[in-house]
């Protein structure tokens, strides 16, 4: 028995590695001389898993596309792009730990992510301190990139988005009074709520209620009761797709009939399913609208729908743009050194991505247009655009743009 067992083990020991297959060297037609490892931090578990899913899908698509064209070409040699995905559980602390791990352990040349400002603000600090380029696709809070030369972003900023929403409330609904309901424990809602409040007051809208809750709350009735008692013309709630349906439904149950407007965090398709009819007709501001797509966007949307059988949301589009920006920077720099990539990223001036044309200011923040989307019969429908003054510039087209 023992002998038989030993023989069996020995035979397995010899055969298994053969079947198990040692990872063979790349046998593609491309002659890869090395690898460019890029870290991705996404909320795969936690409050907003759909955001994580979109991030990874867009990232994999971007990487497969560039590898199909023989990866990144540096000095005539091809480097295969590899992504290492880390889950941040939608928590700031896990995100910081993930960034440390990617930088120190995986030795990534750059990080794409995290998405929410709640994680992007502290993680940006770590990337900056450890001198690794980081591009947050979705974060709109100014603090993510402020005074951090190593941190970049693709989304517009809240000091821009806040006024867009406030002006929209004024023009569309003729609002005189407004109420805000936001999560005080998260950087993005808190920052945007404050920006909206300031912009609204400037536009002549009185903020009659400024109510907050903390991440994880699901019952908003006491805040909503206060808000409704103040009789606002419009409610602004810059929350994520898991919270918006609860807020809208509870507001309606408590007898609020007026408009509720939101921000780019609404734009995940799961919102439509979770909210159902209650959200019909509501408006929010976001980064791009699939139904008025440019050529670049059209190509992306088609490829994405073919591959994943779903419409790309703004997270997917922005993540894809972040990758294109990074690839452009690496090819401009002709280097895989973190410092060269950072310099090249900082020197990109105009970039045409899926989410539109953007130019970059000295903080590394893009200047770009926002769109207003209306939820109509279970779909996000383009309603209006809002651009910063004097943008986009007339002489577009000949500049460096994404592949």
């Amino acid at each position, binding site marked *: 028995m023992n002998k038989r067992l030993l023989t069996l083990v020995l035979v397995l020991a010899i055969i298994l590695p053969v079947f*198990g297959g*040692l990872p063979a060297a790349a046998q593609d037609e491309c002659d890869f001389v090395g690898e460019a490892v890029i870290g991705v931090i996404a909320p795969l578990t936690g409050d907003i898993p759909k955001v994580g899913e979109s991030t990874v899908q867009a990232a994999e698509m971007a990487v497969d596309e560039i590898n199909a064209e023989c990866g990144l070409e540096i000095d005539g040699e091809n480097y295969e792009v590899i992504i290492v995905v880390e889950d941040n559980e939608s928590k*700031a*602390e896990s995100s910081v730990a993930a960034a440390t791990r990617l930088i120190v352990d995986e030795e990534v040349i750059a990080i794409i992510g995290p998405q929410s400002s709640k994680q992007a603000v*502290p993680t940006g600090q*770590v990337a900056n*301190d*450890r001198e690794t380029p980081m591009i947050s696709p979705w974060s709109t809070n100014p603090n993510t990139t402020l005074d951090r030369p190593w941190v970049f972003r693709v989304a517009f900023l809240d000091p821009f988005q806040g006024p867009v929403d406030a002006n929209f409330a004024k023009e569309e609904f003729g609002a005189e009074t407004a109420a805000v309901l936001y999560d*005080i424990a998260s950087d993005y809602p808190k920052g945007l709520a404050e920006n909206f409040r300031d912009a609204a007051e400037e536009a002549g809208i009185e903020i009659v209620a400024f109510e907050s809750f903390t991440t994880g709350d699901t019952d908003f009735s006491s805040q909503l009761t206060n808000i409704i008692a103040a009789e606002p013309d419009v409610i602004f709630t810059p929350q994520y797709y898991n919270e918006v349906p609860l807020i809208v439904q509870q507001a309606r149950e408590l007898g609020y009939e007026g408009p509720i407007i939101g921000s780019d965090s609404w734009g995940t398709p*799961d919102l439509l399913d979770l909210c159902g009819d209650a959200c019909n007709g509501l408006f929010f501001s976001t980064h791009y609208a699939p139904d008025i797509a440019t050529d670049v966007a059209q190509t992306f949307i088609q490829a994405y729908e073919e591959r994943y059988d779903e419409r790309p949301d703004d997270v997917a589009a922005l993540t894809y743009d972040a990758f294109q920006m990074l690839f452009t920077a690496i090819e401009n720099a002709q280097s895989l050194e973190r410092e060269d990539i950072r310099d090249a990223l900082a020197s990109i001036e105009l970039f045409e991505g899926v989410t539109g044309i953007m130019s970059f200011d000295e903080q590394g923040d893009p200047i770009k247009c926002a769109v207003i989307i209306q939820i109509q019969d279970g779909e996000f429908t383009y309603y209006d655009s809002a651009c910063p003054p004097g943008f986009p510039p007339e002489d577009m087209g000949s500049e460096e743009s994404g592949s």
Partner: protein
Amino acid sequence: MLSAIRNRFSRLVAPLRERLQGTPLLVYQLGILGAVVIEQWVGKDFARTLAFRKIPKLFGIVDIFEPFSNLDFSGILGPFFPSPSMTVSNPVSQSAGAIGDLIQTFVNALFYQGRRDPGFFSVLIRVVVYDLVIYVLPTLIIVLLLRGVITRFLRTLPRWANIGIHLVLFYLIIVGWGGDGGTRELVLIFMGINIMLSVSLNLVNGYMGEFSVGHAGFMAVGAYVSSVITMVLFADTRVFGPPLLPPEWGLPFGFIIALIAGGIAAAIAGLLVAFPSFRTRGDYLAIVTLAVNFIVQGVINNLEVVGGPRGLNGVPLWTNLNWTLLFTLISLGLIYNLVNSTFGKGIIAVREDEIAAELMGVNTRRVKLVAFLVSSFIAGMAGGLFAHQLAYVNPGVFGILKSTEVLVMVYLGGMGSISGSVIAAVIFTILIEALRPLAVLKWVVVPLILILLMIYRPQGLFGFRELNLNLGMSRSASRKKIVTSEASDAITGD
């Protein structure tokens, strides 16, 4: 079948074990140092030869679990509780399909799942080969070659030189193996922090016999206080503006002062537990400690100065291997001397019977006060190191989950055992790191280990006992130590 393998294996290693009997620790240290040097020298090339992309992480423990990172269990129960976005017509068949997929993924994970992802067996065999060639064989060879010489040499050394030489070799091994600024250093730093936490909690839970479940609260106080001090004094941050003192002063003095100040602040928070402990004990005191944990979290959550629930950003990245090592050793020394002093016998006496201890003349109030102060002081310093490692603190980190992690380490190692706590912290840190590829599943495996431990070995790895290190000292030099350990055995009744 398992026992057959075990028998065969033990028969195989029996002669080796016989030869190694009584080998002093120093010989093993030299052997491991040799292995570390060999790894520095040829490790990378050898790993490449074995088709690893880089040197296997943590002796390959991490790599072994990596193939299972694709397992997705959500499909099994998911169809029965669909979210509004899902349309489920037949949950049973969907669930069955998901189970089928899971089995397929699992089988693939065992064997082969793509060009970049070798299967479990392939990784396992290569990891074993790597560890044998790089670590085990060189260590064994050096041990067998040197054991006679070193054993004789050690007998001639006085006690201080003996301990000194062990410490130096220990430091060389740690720095040689882990001072790469990469994963290993990261893991070693977390290990050091975990050792500080578990040893300090063991003072209260193990030696004094109370049940504190709020250790993370003290860690939070230490983390925040030391971070605020270093940020205000030495760092240019968005929260507190430009530094008050020249940043060059920050290392080493500023950091030491900040960590100790964090420890002191945590000790003051420890009073919140110490005073109630005069009047209540057992389960009721456990509730008090839980409450203190929540109070600390609640206070920080509402302090807008330090960012409230959004956390504190821009803590200087000062913690490194040397600092962690230094503070871990200081903490171990502090606790070791405390529990082996006369005063420490008082702590143990309180555990055995508080009233009897009081009657025998132990000042139980003072004993409890000191135990809680020392325990929370060390937890506070650990928190400071933690904050300066992550460069970010957030009240969410120091919740009940963190406290539970520390409890797991203490009970894994065994109550009233310093070496048990150290080894448990080491094992736990490696385990958490190794199970990381399993994502959420990690939080099934770790509690499961705890349950099994409580059923089959409730006293932990080293319950009320210490690991006996063979320092190879001559009889006269080591007599003192034997006497003290016998005395402690007599008191713990072991």
